[in-house]
Protein backbone atom coordinates (compact mmCIF):
# COMPACT_ATOMS: atom_id res chain seq x y z
CA UNK A 1 0.00 0.00 0.00
CA UNK A 2 1.70 3.13 -1.14
CA UNK A 3 2.03 6.09 1.15
CA UNK A 4 1.46 8.55 -1.68
CA UNK A 5 -2.26 7.79 -1.95
CA UNK A 6 -4.40 10.92 -2.01
CA UNK A 7 -7.31 9.70 0.06
CA UNK A 8 -6.76 6.37 1.72
CA UNK A 9 -9.86 4.70 3.11
CA UNK A 10 -8.05 3.96 6.36
CA UNK A 11 -4.98 5.71 7.65
CA UNK A 12 -3.38 4.77 10.97
CA UNK A 13 -0.48 6.66 12.51
CA UNK A 14 1.08 5.41 15.74
CA UNK A 15 -2.14 3.60 16.52
CA UNK A 16 -1.80 2.13 20.00
CA UNK A 17 -4.03 0.39 22.47
CA UNK A 18 -3.09 -0.91 25.86
CA UNK A 19 -5.02 -3.37 28.03
CA UNK A 20 -3.35 -3.20 31.45
CA UNK A 21 0.27 -4.16 30.88
CA UNK A 22 -0.44 -5.69 27.45
CA UNK A 23 0.08 -3.65 24.30
CA UNK A 24 -2.66 -4.92 21.95
CA UNK A 25 -1.54 -2.41 19.32
CA UNK A 26 1.95 -0.95 19.51
CA UNK A 27 2.34 2.26 17.47
CA UNK A 28 0.99 0.73 14.29
CA UNK A 29 1.16 2.55 10.92
CA UNK A 30 -0.73 1.52 7.81
CA UNK A 31 -2.88 2.77 4.98
CA UNK A 32 -5.62 1.06 3.03
CA UNK A 33 -6.69 2.36 -0.36
CA UNK A 34 -10.07 2.13 -2.04
CA UNK A 35 -10.85 -0.93 -4.15
CA UNK A 36 -8.62 -3.26 -2.15
CA UNK A 37 -9.38 -6.50 -0.36
CA UNK A 38 -7.04 -6.56 2.59
CA UNK A 39 -6.35 -9.65 4.67
CA UNK A 40 -5.37 -8.89 8.26
CA UNK A 41 -3.82 -12.12 9.43
CA UNK A 42 -2.33 -12.92 12.80
CA UNK A 43 -2.29 -15.49 15.57
CA UNK A 44 -4.82 -15.32 18.39
CA UNK A 45 -4.21 -12.32 20.60
CA UNK A 46 -2.06 -10.50 18.03
CA UNK A 47 -4.28 -7.41 17.96
CA UNK A 48 -6.50 -8.07 14.91
CA UNK A 49 -9.82 -7.57 16.64
CA UNK A 50 -8.52 -4.53 18.52
CA UNK A 51 -7.49 -2.96 15.21
CA UNK A 52 -10.93 -3.64 13.72
CA UNK A 53 -12.67 -2.31 16.83
CA UNK A 54 -10.63 0.89 16.58
CA UNK A 55 -11.55 1.27 12.90
CA UNK A 56 -15.23 0.79 13.74
CA UNK A 57 -15.11 3.24 16.63
CA UNK A 58 -15.87 0.52 19.15
CA UNK A 59 -12.85 1.18 21.32
CA UNK A 60 -10.75 4.08 22.45
CA UNK A 61 -7.12 4.24 21.34
CA UNK A 62 -4.00 6.39 21.26
CA UNK A 63 -2.48 7.84 18.12
CA UNK A 64 -4.19 8.91 14.91
CA UNK A 65 -6.77 7.01 12.95
CA UNK A 66 -8.83 8.25 10.06
CA UNK A 67 -11.49 6.09 8.41
CA UNK A 68 -13.14 7.51 5.28
CA UNK A 69 -11.87 10.86 6.51
CA UNK A 70 -13.68 10.54 9.85
CA UNK A 71 -12.31 10.13 13.34
CA UNK A 72 -13.96 6.93 14.61
CA UNK A 73 -13.89 8.22 18.19
CA UNK A 74 -15.84 11.41 17.61
CA UNK A 75 -17.65 10.92 14.27
CA UNK A 76 -18.94 7.39 14.67
CA UNK A 77 -22.47 8.18 13.46
CA UNK A 78 -21.30 9.59 10.10
CA UNK A 79 -18.81 6.78 9.79
CA UNK A 80 -21.39 4.06 10.35
CA UNK A 81 -23.40 5.25 7.34
CA UNK A 82 -20.51 4.16 5.14
CA UNK A 83 -19.17 1.14 7.00
CA UNK A 84 -20.54 -2.36 7.48
CA UNK A 85 -19.37 -5.09 9.77
CA UNK A 86 -19.83 -8.84 10.00
CA UNK A 87 -18.38 -10.74 12.94
CA UNK A 88 -18.67 -14.39 13.84
CA UNK A 89 -20.47 -13.46 17.03
CA UNK A 90 -24.17 -13.39 16.22
CA UNK A 91 -25.61 -9.97 16.91
CA UNK A 92 -29.09 -10.63 15.53
CA UNK A 93 -31.55 -11.22 18.37
CA UNK A 94 -32.78 -14.82 18.33
CA UNK A 95 -36.47 -13.90 18.53
CA UNK A 96 -36.52 -11.58 15.52
CA UNK A 97 -38.16 -12.70 12.27
CA UNK A 98 -36.21 -12.38 9.00
CA UNK A 99 -38.75 -9.91 7.62
CA UNK A 100 -38.52 -7.83 10.81
CA UNK A 101 -34.73 -7.75 10.60
CA UNK A 102 -34.96 -6.50 7.01
CA UNK A 103 -37.52 -3.84 8.00
CA UNK A 104 -35.39 -2.79 10.96
CA UNK A 105 -32.27 -2.20 8.85
CA UNK A 106 -34.38 -0.46 6.19
CA UNK A 107 -35.65 1.84 8.92
CA UNK A 108 -32.30 2.75 10.46
CA UNK A 109 -29.99 2.72 7.45
CA UNK A 110 -30.35 5.37 4.74
CA UNK A 111 -28.23 3.46 2.23
CA UNK A 112 -30.06 0.12 2.55
CA UNK A 113 -31.90 -1.38 -0.43
CA UNK A 114 -34.78 -3.69 0.57
CA UNK A 115 -35.00 -4.98 -3.03
CA UNK A 116 -31.35 -6.02 -3.11
CA UNK A 117 -31.66 -7.73 0.24
CA UNK A 118 -34.77 -9.70 -0.71
CA UNK A 119 -33.29 -10.64 -4.08
CA UNK A 120 -30.29 -12.10 -2.31
CA UNK A 121 -32.42 -13.93 0.24
CA UNK A 122 -34.51 -15.40 -2.59
CA UNK A 123 -31.42 -17.44 -3.57
CA UNK A 124 -31.28 -19.00 -0.11
CA UNK A 125 -33.58 -21.26 1.90
CA UNK A 126 -34.29 -18.43 4.31
CA UNK A 127 -38.00 -17.52 4.38
CA UNK A 128 -39.23 -14.09 5.55
CA UNK A 129 -41.36 -15.58 8.35
CA UNK A 130 -38.54 -17.57 9.95
CA UNK A 131 -37.13 -16.52 13.28
CA UNK A 132 -33.35 -16.22 13.77
CA UNK A 133 -33.42 -19.04 16.35
CA UNK A 134 -34.78 -21.42 13.68
CA UNK A 135 -31.86 -20.70 11.34
CA UNK A 136 -28.67 -22.74 11.18
CA UNK A 137 -25.35 -20.98 11.75
CA UNK A 138 -24.74 -20.94 8.00
CA UNK A 139 -28.15 -19.38 7.35
CA UNK A 140 -27.58 -16.71 9.99
CA UNK A 141 -24.37 -15.73 8.22
CA UNK A 142 -26.29 -15.67 4.91
CA UNK A 143 -28.90 -13.39 6.47
CA UNK A 144 -26.16 -11.14 7.82
CA UNK A 145 -24.53 -11.06 4.41
CA UNK A 146 -27.83 -10.23 2.71
CA UNK A 147 -28.43 -7.33 5.11
CA UNK A 148 -24.91 -6.03 4.68
CA UNK A 149 -24.60 -6.45 0.91
CA UNK A 150 -27.79 -4.49 0.45
CA UNK A 151 -26.13 -1.50 2.09
CA UNK A 152 -24.16 0.63 -0.30
CA UNK A 153 -21.23 1.00 2.09
CA UNK A 154 -17.74 2.08 1.13
CA UNK A 155 -15.98 -0.11 3.67
CA UNK A 156 -16.86 -3.64 4.72
CA UNK A 157 -15.14 -5.13 7.74
CA UNK A 158 -15.27 -8.90 8.16
CA UNK A 159 -14.02 -10.46 11.39
CA UNK A 160 -13.69 -14.24 10.95
CA UNK A 161 -16.83 -14.21 8.79
CA UNK A 162 -16.79 -17.91 7.96
CA UNK A 163 -15.84 -19.29 11.37
CA UNK A 164 -17.69 -22.52 12.08
CA UNK A 165 -19.32 -22.70 8.65
CA UNK A 166 -19.19 -25.79 6.46
CA UNK A 167 -17.35 -25.76 3.14
CA UNK A 168 -20.48 -25.05 1.08
CA UNK A 169 -21.45 -21.99 3.08
CA UNK A 170 -17.84 -20.75 3.14
CA UNK A 171 -17.54 -20.99 -0.63
CA UNK A 172 -20.85 -19.34 -1.32
CA UNK A 173 -20.01 -16.57 1.15
CA UNK A 174 -16.97 -15.40 -0.80
CA UNK A 175 -18.63 -16.15 -4.12
CA UNK A 176 -21.53 -13.80 -3.29
CA UNK A 177 -19.16 -11.19 -1.98
CA UNK A 178 -17.13 -11.18 -5.21
CA UNK A 179 -19.89 -11.49 -7.78
CA UNK A 180 -22.69 -9.50 -6.13
CA UNK A 181 -21.00 -6.96 -3.91
CA UNK A 182 -17.39 -6.01 -4.47
CA UNK A 183 -16.29 -3.44 -7.04
CA UNK A 184 -13.44 -0.94 -7.28
CA UNK A 185 -15.37 1.68 -5.31
CA UNK A 186 -15.61 -0.62 -2.30
CA UNK A 187 -13.00 -1.79 0.17
CA UNK A 188 -12.97 -4.93 2.27
CA UNK A 189 -10.89 -5.71 5.35
CA UNK A 190 -11.06 -9.34 6.41
CA UNK A 191 -9.49 -11.24 9.28
CA UNK A 192 -9.48 -15.00 9.13
CA UNK A 193 -7.56 -18.07 10.20
CA UNK A 194 -8.70 -19.88 7.06
CA UNK A 195 -6.01 -18.20 5.00
CA UNK A 196 -6.22 -20.69 2.14
CA UNK A 197 -9.79 -19.68 1.32
CA UNK A 198 -8.93 -15.98 0.91
CA UNK A 199 -5.50 -16.60 -0.61
CA UNK A 200 -6.47 -15.60 -4.16
CA UNK A 201 -9.15 -13.11 -3.21
CA UNK A 202 -6.89 -10.68 -1.39
CA UNK A 203 -5.17 -7.78 -3.11
CA UNK A 204 -3.16 -6.90 0.00
CA UNK A 205 -1.76 -8.82 2.90
CA UNK A 206 -1.02 -7.60 6.42
CA UNK A 207 0.50 -9.83 9.10
CA UNK A 208 0.12 -8.70 12.68
CA UNK A 209 2.06 -10.11 15.59
CA UNK A 210 2.26 -8.93 19.20
CA UNK A 211 0.51 -5.68 18.31
CA UNK A 212 2.90 -4.86 15.46
CA UNK A 213 2.44 -5.04 11.69
CA UNK A 214 5.19 -7.39 10.55
CA UNK A 215 4.19 -7.56 6.88
CA UNK A 216 2.28 -5.03 4.81
CA UNK A 217 2.40 -5.64 1.06
CA UNK A 218 0.29 -6.08 -2.04
CA UNK A 219 -0.09 -9.67 -3.22
CA UNK A 220 2.03 -8.75 -6.25
CA UNK A 221 4.80 -7.55 -3.96
CA UNK A 222 4.49 -10.73 -1.91
CA UNK A 223 4.89 -12.79 -5.09
CA UNK A 224 7.97 -10.77 -6.04
CA UNK A 225 9.60 -10.80 -2.63
CA UNK A 226 9.13 -14.35 -1.45
CA UNK A 227 10.15 -17.57 -3.14
CA UNK A 228 10.22 -21.18 -2.08
CA UNK A 229 12.83 -23.58 -3.39
CA UNK A 230 12.93 -27.34 -3.01
CA UNK A 231 16.57 -28.29 -2.64
CA UNK A 232 18.39 -31.64 -2.81
CA UNK A 233 20.55 -32.51 0.23
CA UNK A 234 23.82 -31.83 -1.64
CA UNK A 235 22.84 -28.20 -2.17
CA UNK A 236 21.21 -27.61 1.21
CA UNK A 237 24.26 -25.91 2.72
CA UNK A 238 24.51 -23.57 -0.25
CA UNK A 239 20.85 -22.67 0.30
CA UNK A 240 21.40 -22.10 4.04
CA UNK A 241 24.26 -19.72 3.21
CA UNK A 242 21.72 -17.45 1.47
CA UNK A 243 19.94 -16.94 4.81
CA UNK A 244 16.51 -18.40 4.24
CA UNK A 245 13.58 -17.23 6.35
CA UNK A 246 12.56 -20.81 7.02
CA UNK A 247 13.50 -24.40 6.29
CA UNK A 248 11.28 -27.48 6.38
CA UNK A 249 11.74 -31.08 5.27
CA UNK A 250 9.65 -33.09 2.81
CA UNK A 251 10.68 -36.51 1.45
CA UNK A 252 14.29 -35.97 2.45
CA UNK A 253 14.44 -32.69 0.56
CA UNK A 254 14.59 -29.29 2.16
CA UNK A 255 12.16 -26.55 1.28
CA UNK A 256 13.63 -23.11 1.88
CA UNK A 257 11.67 -19.89 2.03
CA UNK A 258 13.54 -16.78 0.97
CA UNK A 259 12.71 -13.12 1.34
CA UNK A 260 14.08 -10.85 -1.36
CA UNK A 261 16.81 -13.24 -2.52
CA UNK A 262 18.16 -13.10 -6.06
CA UNK A 263 15.97 -15.34 -8.23
CA UNK A 264 18.63 -16.40 -10.69
CA UNK A 265 20.79 -17.49 -7.76
CA UNK A 266 17.89 -19.40 -6.22
CA UNK A 267 16.96 -21.17 -9.43
CA UNK A 268 20.43 -22.80 -9.40
CA UNK A 269 19.37 -24.61 -6.23
CA UNK A 270 16.07 -26.03 -7.44
CA UNK A 271 12.65 -25.23 -8.79
CA UNK A 272 11.11 -21.97 -7.58
CA UNK A 273 7.57 -21.75 -6.25
CA UNK A 274 5.36 -19.04 -4.87
CA UNK A 275 4.84 -19.79 -1.17
CA UNK A 276 1.26 -20.05 0.07
CA UNK A 277 0.07 -17.47 2.59
CA UNK A 278 -0.08 -20.28 5.14
CA UNK A 279 3.61 -21.15 4.63
CA UNK A 280 4.56 -17.50 4.77
CA UNK A 281 2.53 -17.06 7.93
CA UNK A 282 4.13 -20.04 9.69
CA UNK A 283 7.61 -18.79 8.77
CA UNK A 284 6.88 -15.23 9.89
CA UNK A 285 5.22 -16.21 13.16
CA UNK A 286 7.87 -18.72 14.21
CA UNK A 287 8.28 -18.76 17.96
CA UNK A 288 5.04 -16.90 18.69
CA UNK A 289 3.88 -19.37 21.33
CA UNK A 290 7.33 -20.53 22.41
Amino acid at each position, binding site marked *: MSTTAMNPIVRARNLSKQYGATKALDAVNFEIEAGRIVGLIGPNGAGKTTALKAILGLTDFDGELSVLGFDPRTQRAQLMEQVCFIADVAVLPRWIRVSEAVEFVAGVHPRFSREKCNAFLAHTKIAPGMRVRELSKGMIVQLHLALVMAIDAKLLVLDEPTLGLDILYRKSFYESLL*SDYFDESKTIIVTTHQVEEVEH*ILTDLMFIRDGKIVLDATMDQVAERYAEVMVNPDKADAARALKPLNERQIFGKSIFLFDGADRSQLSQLGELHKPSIADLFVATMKGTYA
Partner: protein
Amino acid sequence: MSTVWNDSTPIYRQLRDRVVAMILDGVIKQGDPLPSVRQVAGDFQINPITVSKAYQELVDENLVEKRRGLGMYVSDGARDALLKSERERFLSEEWPALHARLARLGLSLEQLIEAAKSGEKK
Protein backbone atom coordinates in the same frame (compact mmCIF):
# COMPACT_ATOMS: atom_id res chain seq x y z
CA MET B 1 -16.00 -25.10 -8.42
CA SER B 2 -12.70 -26.32 -7.14
CA THR B 3 -9.81 -24.96 -9.14
CA VAL B 4 -6.24 -25.90 -8.48
CA TRP B 5 -3.76 -23.25 -9.51
CA ASN B 6 -0.13 -24.16 -9.79
CA ASP B 7 2.21 -22.03 -7.74
CA SER B 8 4.96 -21.49 -10.28
CA THR B 9 2.93 -19.26 -12.66
CA PRO B 10 0.88 -16.17 -11.72
CA ILE B 11 -2.85 -16.90 -11.59
CA TYR B 12 -3.76 -14.22 -14.13
CA ARG B 13 -1.46 -16.00 -16.56
CA GLN B 14 -3.12 -19.36 -15.85
CA LEU B 15 -6.53 -17.80 -16.29
CA ARG B 16 -5.43 -16.31 -19.60
CA ASP B 17 -4.20 -19.78 -20.67
CA ARG B 18 -7.57 -21.28 -19.73
CA VAL B 19 -9.45 -18.82 -21.91
CA VAL B 20 -6.97 -19.45 -24.73
CA ALA B 21 -7.54 -23.21 -24.40
CA MET B 22 -11.30 -22.67 -24.51
CA ILE B 23 -10.98 -20.57 -27.67
CA LEU B 24 -8.72 -23.21 -29.26
CA ASP B 25 -11.15 -25.99 -28.32
CA GLY B 26 -14.04 -23.98 -29.72
CA VAL B 27 -15.80 -23.83 -26.34
CA ILE B 28 -15.85 -20.06 -26.74
CA LYS B 29 -16.29 -19.02 -30.36
CA GLN B 30 -15.38 -15.86 -32.21
CA GLY B 31 -17.86 -13.12 -31.42
CA ASP B 32 -18.89 -14.82 -28.17
CA PRO B 33 -18.92 -12.70 -25.01
CA LEU B 34 -16.57 -13.55 -22.16
CA PRO B 35 -18.17 -13.79 -18.72
CA SER B 36 -17.96 -10.58 -16.68
CA VAL B 37 -15.02 -9.92 -14.39
CA ARG B 38 -17.35 -10.18 -11.37
CA GLN B 39 -18.73 -13.49 -12.54
CA VAL B 40 -15.29 -15.01 -13.04
CA ALA B 41 -14.01 -13.59 -9.75
CA GLY B 42 -16.96 -15.16 -7.93
CA ASP B 43 -16.77 -18.49 -9.75
CA PHE B 44 -13.05 -18.98 -9.20
CA GLN B 45 -12.84 -17.12 -5.87
CA ILE B 46 -10.07 -14.87 -7.07
CA ASN B 47 -9.81 -11.13 -6.80
CA PRO B 48 -11.25 -9.06 -9.65
CA ILE B 49 -7.91 -7.38 -10.34
CA THR B 50 -6.48 -10.79 -11.28
CA VAL B 51 -9.35 -11.37 -13.71
CA SER B 52 -8.97 -7.89 -15.24
CA LYS B 53 -5.27 -8.51 -15.68
CA ALA B 54 -5.92 -11.79 -17.52
CA TYR B 55 -8.51 -10.10 -19.75
CA GLN B 56 -6.13 -7.21 -20.44
CA GLU B 57 -3.48 -9.70 -21.63
CA LEU B 58 -6.02 -11.12 -24.07
CA VAL B 59 -6.91 -7.61 -25.26
CA ASP B 60 -3.21 -6.79 -25.73
CA GLU B 61 -2.85 -9.93 -27.82
CA ASN B 62 -5.84 -8.85 -29.94
CA LEU B 63 -7.66 -12.06 -29.04
CA VAL B 64 -10.42 -10.27 -27.22
CA GLU B 65 -11.97 -6.86 -27.76
CA LYS B 66 -13.64 -4.55 -25.35
CA ARG B 67 -17.03 -3.27 -26.49
CA ARG B 68 -17.96 -0.15 -24.62
CA GLY B 69 -20.65 -0.80 -22.07
CA LEU B 70 -21.09 -4.41 -23.17
CA GLY B 71 -17.98 -6.20 -21.98
CA MET B 72 -15.38 -8.43 -23.60
CA TYR B 73 -15.86 -10.37 -26.84
CA VAL B 74 -13.67 -12.89 -28.63
CA SER B 75 -12.22 -11.14 -31.69
CA ASP B 76 -12.71 -12.35 -35.25
CA GLY B 77 -9.70 -14.35 -36.33
CA ALA B 78 -8.73 -15.05 -32.71
CA ARG B 79 -8.65 -18.81 -33.18
CA ASP B 80 -6.43 -18.70 -36.30
CA ALA B 81 -4.08 -16.20 -34.69
CA LEU B 82 -3.90 -18.39 -31.59
CA LEU B 83 -3.23 -21.57 -33.53
CA LYS B 84 -0.36 -19.83 -35.24
CA SER B 85 1.19 -18.35 -32.10
CA GLU B 86 0.58 -21.42 -29.94
CA ARG B 87 2.21 -23.64 -32.56
CA GLU B 88 5.21 -21.33 -32.66
CA ARG B 89 5.38 -21.28 -28.88
CA PHE B 90 5.18 -25.07 -28.70
CA LEU B 91 8.02 -25.46 -31.17
CA SER B 92 10.27 -22.89 -29.52
CA GLU B 93 9.50 -23.48 -25.83
CA GLU B 94 7.92 -26.87 -25.16
CA TRP B 95 9.33 -29.01 -27.93
CA PRO B 96 13.05 -28.64 -27.03
CA ALA B 97 12.34 -29.82 -23.47
CA LEU B 98 10.07 -32.61 -24.69
CA HIS B 99 12.60 -33.64 -27.30
CA ALA B 100 15.34 -33.79 -24.70
CA ARG B 101 13.14 -35.96 -22.49
CA LEU B 102 12.29 -38.32 -25.34
CA ALA B 103 16.00 -38.66 -26.10
CA ARG B 104 16.74 -39.32 -22.43
CA LEU B 105 14.13 -42.10 -22.38
CA GLY B 106 15.41 -43.49 -25.67
CA LEU B 107 11.98 -43.42 -27.32
CA SER B 108 12.05 -43.68 -31.10
CA LEU B 109 9.70 -41.93 -33.51
CA GLU B 110 8.20 -45.32 -34.48
CA GLN B 111 7.42 -46.17 -30.86
CA LEU B 112 5.73 -42.81 -30.37
CA ILE B 113 3.60 -43.17 -33.49
CA GLU B 114 2.69 -46.71 -32.44
CA ALA B 115 1.67 -45.48 -28.96
CA ALA B 116 -0.38 -42.65 -30.46
CA LYS B 117 -2.19 -45.07 -32.82
CA SER B 118 -3.08 -47.55 -30.09
CA GLY B 119 -4.22 -44.62 -27.96
CA GLU B 120 -6.58 -43.47 -30.74
CA LYS B 121 -8.08 -46.97 -31.12
CA LYS B 122 -9.12 -47.09 -27.46
